[in-house]
């Protein structure tokens, strides 16, 4: 498998810290996005991100190259964040769309990114950690369906259904604003 990180991984395996530092620099935001998307808390996401990289560094010998390093890294990050999320505060996904609250705000307020951010955060909170993981990987990290399926070790159908559900929620929350404000 042609992995663009192959050389850095080989060096990291023999204990080359700066080489692994380059991998940290390259993937920090992407791992943080997964952790933050799932955990929905900055402090916890930062801790989880750090723990993921330290764990990966110490266990990099276990990486055999069967998949891309990025995929393996995301899998470690997503599993760690989902486990942490379940351990701390089990989330009951809100299935009933009628219970989702949207703020009736003026178009001017809604135009601000802050408002949109709040709506996204509120919508994310209504999703399960697994749905959030799929949504973040697709919308934030631009992974393909196949990559998401491989990363989370689920089939593509599950990826698509979770993504569909998450998008539907997001569209419901942001729909009229997206239609009116976002260009």
């Amino acid at each position: 498998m042609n992995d663009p990180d192959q050389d850095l991984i080989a060096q990291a395996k023999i204990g080359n810290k700066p080489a692994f530092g380059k991998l940290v620099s390259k993937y920090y935001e992407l791992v943080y996005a997964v952790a933050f998307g799932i955990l929905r808390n900055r402090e916890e996401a930062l801790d989880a991100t750090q723990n993921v990289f330290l764990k990966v560094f110490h266990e990099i010998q276990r990486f055999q190259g069967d998949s891309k390093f990025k995929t393996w890294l995301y899998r470690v990050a997503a599993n760690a964040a989902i486990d942490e999320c379940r351990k701390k505060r089990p989330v009951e996904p809100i299935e009933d769309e009628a219970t989702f609250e949207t703020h009736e705000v003026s178009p001017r307020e809604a135009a601000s990114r802050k408002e949109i951010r709040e709506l996204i955060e509120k919508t994310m909170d209504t999703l399960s950690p697994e749905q959030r993981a799929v949504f973040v990987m697709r919308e934030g990290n631009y992974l393909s369906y196949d990559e998401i399926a491989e990363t989370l070790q689920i089939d593509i159908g599950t990826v698509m259904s979770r993504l569909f559900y998450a998008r539907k929620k997001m569209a419901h929350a942001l729909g009229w604003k997206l239609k009116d404000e976002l260009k």
Partner: protein
Amino acid sequence: MNHEKKITKAFKDFLSDEFSSAQVKRAKKDLLQQFSARPQFEWKPVMIVPVLSLMFMVILIYHMYPLVKPEIKVPPVVPVITEQTSPIKVKKVKVSSMTKQIEKIIHTGVPSDVKVTRVSSDIGPAMVYQKNYRDAPITIVWVFPKEVKQ
């Protein structure tokens, strides 16, 4: 722009704001420092010059130290006669009975190359023993101070 793309854009902005927060940037910097390269000593050929210079200096100082070390002045064991002491004034005097006895003792075993002279001084009678030892004359002066009268 359809809803899907708008959601993607909105979420991208959402994450972009999150990444640009100072807390996230600081956490990334702290983590990267854990994997930064430590300054390790690496031998370079150019280092041979200062190393050899240092070695040369050490060897030079080791060998030169005995030559340049300061002399230690040992105070003289024999007291130096200064101007204040009265100089010995040699003058011929009558040979006393004591000096005659000493002369007799000395002359019994005195070799021919030794010259013994009796002299007198203000301090008291003195005898000068002279020998030309291997072209290095030896002179010994015995002085018998007079008894101090109370």
